[in-house]
């Protein structure tokens, strides 16, 4: 019993220590403002985490938009409110699904890749050798990936939303025979630039920080063995997905909290 409690205590302390290490990694990496000479490194990483995530994001966005439009069309059709399909689609995407689904896809595609890459660099002593050459891997390896993640996810989210709304429009207008003019005017009448778009962007920035931070830290903190890399990669996807959903709940509560 005592042993069990001690185990629980030790594991909790490990968690707390992990949060501490993660914070140190983040602050140490972001301490220095990126210099002009760091730009090529960041560009390379935006390519790795942003451009390479585009295909999965665009495909998912189109499918999700189309499916949502289909569901909204049948359900709202029961009340003769097909004209509200566009509005429903836009609000659901801008406020919730866009930021959340893109962040989850990003965690699976880019987050896991970041963790595996940094973990492999640690396991093969590339990080150590860099340090011994007088180059700080936190600035050289970790920081560009952090900045690239911060930039890429909000952009991916915007692209996701546009593609999804178009996917929905194709279903609602071309396929279900809705009216294109009313689809757009309905959206424009209801969507507010701050309440719906701005808050969605705030969410995607928050998710970008959380997912990239977790991915980079899990890589940097990997146990330097092949199994260690596998475990760290899995942890990145699991922990960041859970964190995205939890933070989304909290942000929705605090930003749209007047549900009464």
């Amino acid at each position, binding site marked *: 019993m005592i042993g069990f409690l001690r185990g629980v205590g030790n594991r909790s302390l490990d968690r707390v220590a992990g949060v501490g290490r993660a914070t140190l990694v983040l602050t140490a990496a972001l301490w220095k403002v990126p210099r002009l000479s760091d730009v090529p490194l960041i560009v390379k990483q935006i390519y790795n985490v*942003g451009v390479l995530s585009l295909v999965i994001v665009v495909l998912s966005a189109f499918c999700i938009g189309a499916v949502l439009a289909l569901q909204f069309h049948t359900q709202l059709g029961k*009340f003769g409110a097909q004209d509200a399909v566009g509005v429903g689609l836009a609000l659901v995407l801008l406020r919730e699904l866009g930021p959340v689904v893109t962040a989850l896809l990003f965690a699976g595609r880019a987050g896991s890749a970041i963790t595996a890459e940094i973990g492999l660099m640690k396991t093969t002593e590339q990080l150590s050798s860099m340090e011994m050459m007088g180059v700080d891997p936190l600035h050289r390896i970790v920081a560009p990936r952090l900045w690239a993640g911060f930039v890429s996810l909000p*952009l991916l989210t915007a692209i996701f939303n546009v593609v999804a709304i178009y996917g929905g429009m194709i279903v609602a207008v071309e396929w279900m025979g809705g009216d294109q003019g009313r689809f757009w005017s309905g959206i424009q009448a209801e969507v507010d*630039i701050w309440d719906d778009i701005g808050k969605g962007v705030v969410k995607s920035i928050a998710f970008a920080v959380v997912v990239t931070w977790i991915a980079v830290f899990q890589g940097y903190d990997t146990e330097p063995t092949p199994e260690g890399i596998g475990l760290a990669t899995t942890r990145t996807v699991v922990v960041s997905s859970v964190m995205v959903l939890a933070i989304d709940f909290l942000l929705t509560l605090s930003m749209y909290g007047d549900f009464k």
Partner: protein
Amino acid sequence: MLMRTVEISTGAFVLAGTLALIFLAVRISGVNLTADRSSYTVMARFNDVAGLQTRAKVSIAGVTVGRVAAIDVDMEYGEAIVSMELKGSGGVLSMDTGAQILTEGILGARYINLLPGADEETLSDGDVIEDTQGAMVLENLIGDLVTRLGAS
């Protein structure tokens, strides 16, 4: 050569993302950057605003002229005070303008309809509309009907 492909596709990605953001702002939210954005606020007291939400539309003869900005309660009189943000700078609607809460369709959202009057004086920022008609609550209507049927 390889680096060049990376740079070009990254540039295209950043541009596409930025364009998507601009598209969302302009096309989706319908922000009009050139139009007159000025507005003024008038209040209205209602006995019942059940179902009315902030950001609900305010219209005259079916044309949207503003939004509900806030809904507060006056504890003393047991009334709701609705603040409406109307486009323009005031001085157009007469002082005896009426306000009624209507419903879009049968189950649709509540909105406020304004009925301009004939007074010389006009409403400006901060004025209060007194001639109001609150929300028709379906339960009350049915209750009314039942008692009347019972009485006859």
